């Protein structure tokens, strides 16, 4: 469960990214974050995986008070949160297999377990035959699948996805969405920032709209609500 209480975030340059955001996201929810560029969606997500700390307010993820977390503890909280980006962020010199296995090596899992689980998620994301390819040899959609595989390999309770389909064509995007829905179906909370009207309006989920650093709309089965 994720809970934000009256969160304010002001960056060093004086930008007010968030102004008093309070929201509660329960286990196993699927949430779209929508809103214009620069509205505060990315900051919202960065606060959840503790890349940023709030200027004011409290944020808790799975019972951890994220804002007060000791730097030493950050890695352990992040292991329970899978993060997916628009630009995939794979390690360029590692193969597909190594990229995914890396997230498990970090938690010091035994090699045997790593191998079994990595092959499992590779199959789940549909890249079973590509395990020894390098990221640059893959298409954008395939790279995003690797990133998703890496995000879910440790069975996190939350997945944070910042415009995961932003660089992909519509058909590939739908493939990624089906995958995310499947992962959500298996019990993982998903928070996804997106500008994709078609996806939001077709695959109907909870929609949280952020404008100017505040939540302007929060609907259980919402719509995109912006003209592109």
């Amino acid at each position: 469960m994720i809970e934000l209480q009256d969160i304010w975030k002001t960056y060093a340059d004086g930008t007010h990214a968030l102004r008093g955001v309070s929201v509660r996201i329960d286990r196993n929810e699927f949430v779209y974050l929508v809103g214009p560029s620069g509205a505060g969606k990315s900051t919202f997500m960065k606060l959840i995986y503790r890349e940023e700390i709030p200027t004011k307010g409290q944020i808790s993820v799975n019972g951890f008070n994220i804002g007060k977390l000791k730097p030493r503890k950050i890695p352990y909280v992040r292991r329970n949160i899978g993060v997916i980006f628009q630009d995939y962020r794979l390690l360029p010199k590692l193969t597909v297999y190594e990229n995914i296995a890396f997230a498990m090596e970090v938690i010091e899992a035994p090699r045997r377990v790593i191998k079994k689980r990595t092959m499992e998620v590779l199959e789940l994301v549909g890249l079973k035959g590509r395990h020894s390819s390098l990221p640059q040899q893959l298409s954008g959609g395939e790279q995003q699948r690797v990133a998703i595989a890496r995000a879910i390999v440790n069975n996190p309770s939350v997945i944070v996805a910042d415009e995961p389909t932003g660089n992909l064509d519509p058909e590939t995007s739908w493939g990624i969405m089906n995958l995310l829905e499947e992962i959500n179906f298996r019990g993982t909370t998903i928070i996804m920032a997106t500008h994709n009207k078609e996806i939001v309006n077709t695959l109907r989920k909870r929609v949280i709209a952020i404008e100017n650093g505040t939540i302007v709309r929060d609907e259980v089965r919402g719509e995109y609500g912006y003209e592109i």
Partner: protein
Amino acid sequence: MKFSTLVRHLREGVKNVVRNGWMTFASVSSIIISLFILGAFLLLAMNVNNLADQIESQVQIRVYLQLNTDDAKINELKNTIGNIPEVSKIEFVSKEKGLEALRESMGADGAELLEGYDQTNNPLPDSFTVEVFEPQKIAYAAKQIEAIGKTDESSPITSVKYGKGTVESLFKIMNAVRNIGLVIVAGLGVTAMFLISNTIKTTIVARRREIGIMKLVGATNNFIRWPFFIEGALIGCFGSVVTVVLLLVGYSRLVEVSQVELGLMMIKLVTLKDAGYTVSVLILGLGTLIGIWGSTLSVRKYLKV
């Protein structure tokens, strides 16, 4: 840390060396070049030092005695002077030997001048040749010998000579040469450290993103640091091994080639065995340390995310 994790870090460190081929090449090259220059100067400094020692060890004190000093007195003096802590060796040079040595050193030209002198009319006095442990303390030792001569009522010592003035300036020059060598080597050492750690830093800046991703999937700082640490040590170690091999092979060739010519000038180079030990230990130690230092220091900068 689990043992399997340590193995993983070792494996990863070695893999990184291979994966970052060009960066590794750049780091290793910069290590080889800087350490080679450092090593060459070190060898030069060692030889200059050695030469200075050789020259200095040739200074000695001549103690001249009264013409008619008897054997008992000579023995007594030999013992007293030999007991001075600074004195390493004392040798009695009889007037006959003195004459012989003089003849030899003057060669053919002197033969005429010295003609007619023999055992009966030898004009030279008996003398001692005194050597000291530390050439720089020669003046002090000479003073002590003079004092011995003065305290003896028969005053058997006529003069004590060690090249006063000349010896002092020789020492001054030799000390300056040594210090200059030391400053150059130290300066090169520091330069090498910065050059190498800068190259390693550049290779890690290129991997800033990589470190960011590692942090994102929940890697602890130590987990990220270890492979870099091992990679740095490997690069430093490999670079310095190559440098040591180059230096020693080059030096042994130099010793071989120059042996005859320098031998004629009475100069002896430091042997490969003596030089090799110092140079290897220093270069290997320094190279490995710099490798580790450079990589750990640079990683630390990007761990604060």
